[in-house]
């Protein structure tokens, strides 16, 4: 079967349980089992070839640019691990079917489990280290889901997060390491990397790469000091612990060390980092395991210890040690998975896994007892079980290894670890199964159904078989796998029980005997142990994460405290600093234009401008006054435009001023008349300095620009030359607006339209909220004019209206050739209409208004767009203008230009936008009883009394 299919099957299979769970739990577990079985069979089909020494490849380009390709290969090491993953996976699926209760969402469980399985298979089959990284992180993620599977348990959630944080960080470090490695070799393909030992070890980047990759391996394989996550991951359901945290995932780190062994090992750095870490882990894990009362915690620390053992063996860097490591991987997987499952059975049946509450179970659970007995004896290293064989090999290897010149460190500590290992193994049996039967179990324990014990029983059979007939049963697998690890000739080794009276045998005997003694002293030792202060990893981890979260929170909040003043200050300072830097690092040419002398008129205008600006600064808290001063600034600017021969700009500016001031006055009506609390003196000073720096900078920039000519001919020369010829108008400003750069104008009228629509939408939203009640009951904070619609004003505005509209039309039509145009005309027309609202009242004006302003805006944009599209029918680009001259009878010749149609769109959009904004703002002021059918309050011809002033009315209503 293709390797792609083997790797993909678990992922495909992950879909089914989640869906099929609706068809029942059997369907879900069956589908999971079937896909795993298929993958297992597929693997077995390939096995003979691999055992013959072949390597099977499957390659598919994924992202060749990066060197990330879906390349898989299957060699001895991969075969060994894939067999473990899929084989034990099958047993776990069976076991979990009976372990999980009715309340547990089993579909999810199997889906997560198969996701994990797929990721693991992917790791061991990858022939590309980037692909391997993908699967590596996937195992972290899927194990996160599995550990947190019982989401109602806080231990599960915290354990999941801890596992993810630790293994995830290792994975990230490994990304760095793998990228370095790939850079050294020039390829991310494992088969290539594995042939470049000299290149890699000679590189100055060897050490960083090694450390980063090892960080990934150590975190994943729970090596000291990263071991603490593993015991907390035991909050997961037992099938998960058995599968992930003993048989497979924690071995991923070992796998990778074994995989990289040919190119990374053999250096002192490798030896001291890997072997030392392994040694320490082995001892620490074994010691702690002895004092754990929780069955799963005991097994977890024992797993840590055994992983340390294997790491140490790999770290030795000798070929024999590597063989021993491979062999122990197999043995540990078999007995430890069986032990976890037995612990799960005990927990499942007795409803506790506290050793202190157990004991005497051998009478009640004989089958479980047998399984657990054999498995723990193997773990203790008792012949003739498989654990004994590999432990012997370990001790043998340890005996021949010196550490920093000392012959005693490694063998001594190895014996110590073996001793504790024997002790906790014995404890697992003695304190749980032996002893008298108790009467205070939480429930009445008994052996479970066959579904639960068949899995561990099969594993135990393997334990015995490998022990008794090591060479025929495990020999071929060990040889092929070891060959793949070593990447060369195998050393001489023999898998057998009796090697003669070797030092390892004496060490082994000493360890077992010592272990037995330790167990007898257990109660006393435990008292000492409990009295010792020892760091609790979870507390430390929680404290770190908690502190980090709080720190992150306060940093973020302090940085983003919502103060607009501060954001603005940072903005100005940053912009000013970078601009000054840019200026300082460039060279400035000499000014090319002379500065003109200022006449009295200029000085007066300048003084007005400065005075008004200073006035705003001083009086800004009185909003209405500030508004008036802003009007002054606008007027001076308009005058400036006019003086500098830009009448279009002046006209636009002045009409914009009028409209904005009116709209802002309307808005001010609903705001407090004074600005709120201000910053303190120091901050004010700071802001003043920043503002002055910013302002001066802009002033200096503009001065520099104005005293220099363009360095290149400008595009406006073309505009001047082509305005009449190509655009049909002599007012080049207008031709630029509607023709040369009509597209900009098109965008800008849309901006204006959107602004009005946003004001409208905002008004609607606010008036539909409970703010409306406040508005309706609003009392004016200033005395109101007794005469809301003064006669003089009403009459004047009504008389003005046709005139103003006529002026607007005039400005519109002359626009193409003389100052004017749709934009200004629109503003003038809008002002004419606004005057009606102001003088005669909102209700009066609205009644007489037959076109919705929405429609006018829309029409404006559509007319402009349609004009632009019209050019398409002429096979010209969007907004291409056309013009011609007509000479109707009795009239003078005049020009017709499509640009005028476009300008009409501009006109409509402006009128609509301004009036929609006005109308929206005015609606805030609406109060019941306000509307009057008489626009002029004081009308002598009227019968009813004129005292319908709004406030009194409100109260009555």
């Amino acid at each position: 079967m293709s390797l792609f299919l083997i790797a993909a099957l678990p992922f495909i299979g992950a879909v089914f349980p989640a869906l099929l769970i609706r068809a029942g739990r059997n369907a879900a577990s069956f589908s999971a089992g079937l896909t795993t079985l298929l993958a297992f069979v597929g693997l077995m089909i390939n096995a003979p070839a691999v055992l013959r020494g072949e390597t099977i490849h499957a390659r598919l380009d994924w992202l060749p640019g990066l060197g990330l390709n879906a390349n898989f290969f299957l060699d001895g090491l991969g075969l060994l691990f894939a067999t473990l993953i899929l084989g034990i996976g099958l047993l776990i699926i069976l076991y979990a079917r009976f372990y999980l209760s009715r309340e547990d969402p089993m579909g999810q469980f199997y889906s997560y489990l198969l996701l994990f399985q797929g990721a693991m298979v992917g790791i061991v089959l990858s022939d590309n280290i980037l692909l391997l990284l993908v699967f590596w992180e996937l195992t972290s993620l899927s194990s996160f889901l599995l550990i947190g599977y019982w989401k109602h348990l806080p231990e599960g959630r915290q354990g999941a997060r801890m596992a993810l944080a630790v293994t995830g960080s290792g994975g990230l470090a490994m990304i760095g390491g793998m990228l370095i490695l790939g850079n050294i070799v020039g390829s991310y393909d494992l088969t290539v990397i594995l042939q470049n030992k000299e290149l890699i070890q000679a590189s100055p980047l060897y050490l960083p790469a090694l450390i980063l990759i090892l960080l990934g391996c150590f975190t994943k394989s729970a090596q000291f000091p990263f071991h603490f996550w593993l015991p907390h991951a035991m909050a997961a359901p037992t099938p998960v612990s058995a599968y992930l945290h003993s048989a497979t995932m924690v071995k991923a780190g070992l796998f990778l060390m074994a995989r990289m062994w040919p190119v990374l090992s053999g250096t002192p750095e490798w030896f001291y980092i890997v072997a030392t870490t392994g040694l320490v882990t082995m001892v620490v894990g074994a010691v702690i395991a002895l004092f754990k009362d929780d069955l799963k915690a005991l097994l977890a620390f024992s797993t840590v210890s055994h992983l340390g053992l294997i790491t140490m063996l790999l770290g030795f860097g000798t070929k024999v040690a590597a063989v021993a490591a491979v062999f122990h991987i197999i043995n540990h997987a078999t007995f430890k998975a069986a032990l976890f499952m037995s612990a799960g059975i005990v927990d499942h049946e007795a409803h506790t896994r506290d050793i202190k509450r157990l004991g005497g179970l051998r009478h009640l659970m004989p089958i479980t007892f047998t399984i657990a007995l054999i498995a723990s004896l193997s773990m203790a290293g008792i012949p003739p079980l498989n654990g004994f064989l590999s432990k012997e090999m370990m001790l043998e290897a340890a005996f021949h290894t010196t550490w920093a010149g000392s012959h005693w460190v490694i063998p001594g500590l190895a014996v110590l670890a073996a001793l504790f290992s024997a002790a906790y193994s014995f404890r697992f049996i003695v304190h749980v199964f032996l002893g008298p039967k108790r009467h205070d179990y939480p429930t009445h324990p008994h052996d479970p159904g066959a579904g639960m014990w068949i899995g561990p029983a099969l594993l135990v059979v393997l334990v015995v078989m490998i022990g008794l007939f090591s060479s025929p049963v495990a020999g071929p697998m060990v040889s092929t796998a070891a060959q793949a690890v070593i990447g060369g000739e195998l050393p001489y080794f023999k898998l057998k029980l009796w090697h003669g009276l070797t030092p390892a045998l004496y060490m082994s005997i000493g360890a077992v005997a010592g272990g037995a003694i330790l167990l007898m002293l257990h109660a006393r030792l435990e008292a000492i142990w409990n009295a010792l202060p020892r760091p609790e990893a979870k507390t430390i981890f929680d404290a770190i994460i908690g502190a980090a979260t709080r720190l992150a929170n306060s940093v973020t909040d302090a940085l983003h405290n919502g103060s607009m003043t501060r954001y603005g200050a940072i903005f100005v300072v940053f912009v000013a600093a970078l601009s000054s830097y840019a200026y300082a690092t460039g060279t400035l040419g000499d000014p090319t234009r002379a500065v003109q002398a200022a006449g009295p008129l200029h000085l007066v205008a300048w003084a007005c401008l400065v005075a008004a600006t200073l006035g705003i600064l001083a009086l800004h808290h009185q909003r209405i006054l500030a508004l008036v001063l802003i009007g002054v600034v606008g007027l001076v600017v308009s005058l400036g435009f006019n003086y500098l021969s830009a009448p279009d700009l002046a006209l636009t500016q002045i009409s914009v001023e009028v409209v904005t001031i009116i709209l802002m006055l309307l808005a001010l009506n609903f705001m407090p008349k004074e600005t709120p609390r201000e910053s303190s003196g120091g901050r004010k000073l700071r802001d003043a300095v920043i503002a002055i720096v910013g302002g001066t900078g802009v002033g200096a920039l503009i001065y520099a620009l104005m005293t220099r000519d363009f360095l290149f001919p400008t595009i406006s020369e073309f505009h001047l030359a082509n305005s009449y010829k190509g655009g049909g108008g002599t007012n080049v400003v207008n031709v630029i607006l509607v023709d040369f750069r009509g597209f900009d104008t098109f965008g800008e009228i849309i901006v204006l339209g959107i602004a009005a629509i946003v004001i409208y939408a905002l008004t609607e939203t606010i008036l539909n909220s409970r703010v409306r009640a406040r508005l309706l009951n609003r009392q004016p904070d200033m005395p109101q004019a007794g005469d809301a619609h003064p006669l003089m004003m009403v009459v004047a505005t009504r008389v003005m209206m046709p005139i103003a509209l006529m002026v607007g039309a005039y400005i519109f039509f002359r626009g193409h050739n003389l100052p004017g145009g749709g934009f200004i005309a629109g503003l003038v027309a809008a002002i004419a209409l606004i005057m009606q609202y102001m003088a005669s009242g909102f209700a009066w004006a609205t009644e007489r208004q037959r076109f919705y302003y929405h429609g006018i805006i829309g029409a404006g944009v559509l007319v402009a767009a349609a004009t632009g599209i019209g050019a398409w029918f002429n096979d010209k680009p969007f907004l291409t203008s056309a013009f011609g001259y007509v000479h109707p009878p009795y009239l003078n010749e005049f020009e017709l230009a499509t640009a005028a149609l476009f300008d009409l769109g501009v006109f409509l959009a402006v009128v609509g936008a301004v009036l929609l904004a006005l109308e929206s703002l005015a609606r805030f002021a609406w109060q019941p009883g306000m509307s009057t059918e008489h626009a002029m309050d004081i009308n002598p011809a009227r019968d009813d009394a004129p005292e319908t002033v709004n406030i009194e009315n409100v109260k009555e209503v």
Partner: protein
Amino acid sequence: MSHLIVTPVVLPALLAPFIIMALRHHLDLQRIFSIAGTVALVAITLALTVQASDGSVQVYDLGDWPAPFGIVLVLDRLSALMALLTSLLALGVVLYAVGSGWDERGRHFHALLQFQLMGILGAFLTGDAFNLFVFFEVLLIASYGLMIHGGGPKRLRAGVQYVVYNLLGSTLFLFALGTIYAVTGTLNMADIAVRVAELPAEDTALLRVGAVMLLLVFAIKAAVLPLHFWLPASYANAPLPVAALFAIMTKVGAYAILRVYTLAFGPDVSATQGLVGDWLLPAALLTLAVGSIGVLGAREIGRLVAFGSIASVGTLLTSIALFTPEAAAASVYYMIHSTLASAILFLVADLVMERRGGAIIAQRPMPQTGLIASLFFVGAIALAGMPPLSGFVGKLLVMDAARDSDLVWSIWAVILISSLITIVGFARAGSILFWESHDAAHAREAEPEPDEEDEDLPPPVSAPASNLTFVAIFGLIGGLVLLTVFSGPAMNYATATADALFDPTAYIDTVLKRSPQ
């Protein structure tokens, strides 16, 4: 001649006023037209991408005035890709907004959305610097309208900050354009490029000021530290489907940097030497760091995702700031990913928000929690850059592209460490939101008291969301999956795009209608 290039601007510009004029009171019709229009945009931009994928540059002279005197739209691989990405994202967002009923919580949602699209698409397609300003204005004002859609005091307050900060940016944009025009006398980007290259060496100071100010404008839009302050509050308080659409807005800034600082002020231009990468790279790394710290510290799901998207902008800008073709290719790839991933997570956050409010605290389990938790998981994986989704590939690409940089170790360290912080942050938030709520302690808890500030908001919906919302999210996730699976072809496109960016002669010649030398 073909007018297809201008249709992505003209179509929404016609549709939006039509909706305002004729369909103002008919939400159903608005929805139909808005969805249909967006589908049409997808088709149009897809066709444009196909046209551009052969490497040709197409120029459209608006008003039939040749560049540099008139405004031109320019279609090349990059602009076509960005336009396609925008319309795909918009389709997801509009479907979600319709499905979730967000579009009925205020007026003119669909019209504003179409205007917003017009602004974004115009910004991607234009070849004229001032026209870019105009489209920035269009998208700014439309986005403000969308941001405050639905109202509520918190949202309105955040909206004011958003619009004020961005108006500061617009002002700076005008200063920058004024300066550049005063030196070069032109506004067309290709023409600026030609003239900048010919700039006398003794007169560079003013141009440098203009160039750096322009860069700062784009940095504001892209939310690069320390100019990102507008983003967190406004994205977190905007209607989250709108925030999902805004995922493309930061990319407008990133796109503009990529475009202008390879075309006109590129790394080889002597006049603007040393202005861009030197500070942009550290700033981008800082952005990434602050973003990930914000993810870890977030107490509210909107802010969580907002900071997540800031972090992804940091990664993106890191890649852009390297200014090499490889890094630019990586950034093009990552840009697609980052847009989709942020959008997905914003939409998922909205599902959560609608059911149980935004605070990241344990509460009663919400309806559809399993499905939403899975979607959150997928989105978080994507945004944090974990495998198997494209974020991981993108991150690898960025890191790989950085290997020749002087700062390679800092870049790698910041990317990896902030990934870790992000992962821890998302895991924390997810486990509180979706797992801890199943704790027996919270199962019978009463509804939390609504926030005083939010009293004007409509009450949370309890009915399961319409399928359309999930269709939208799954559709976007599908996009990510495709981007991952077909990362090879996608990178081929990105590499071709980047190569063209760093050799802009074809672009300049086509725009200015010069015969190739």
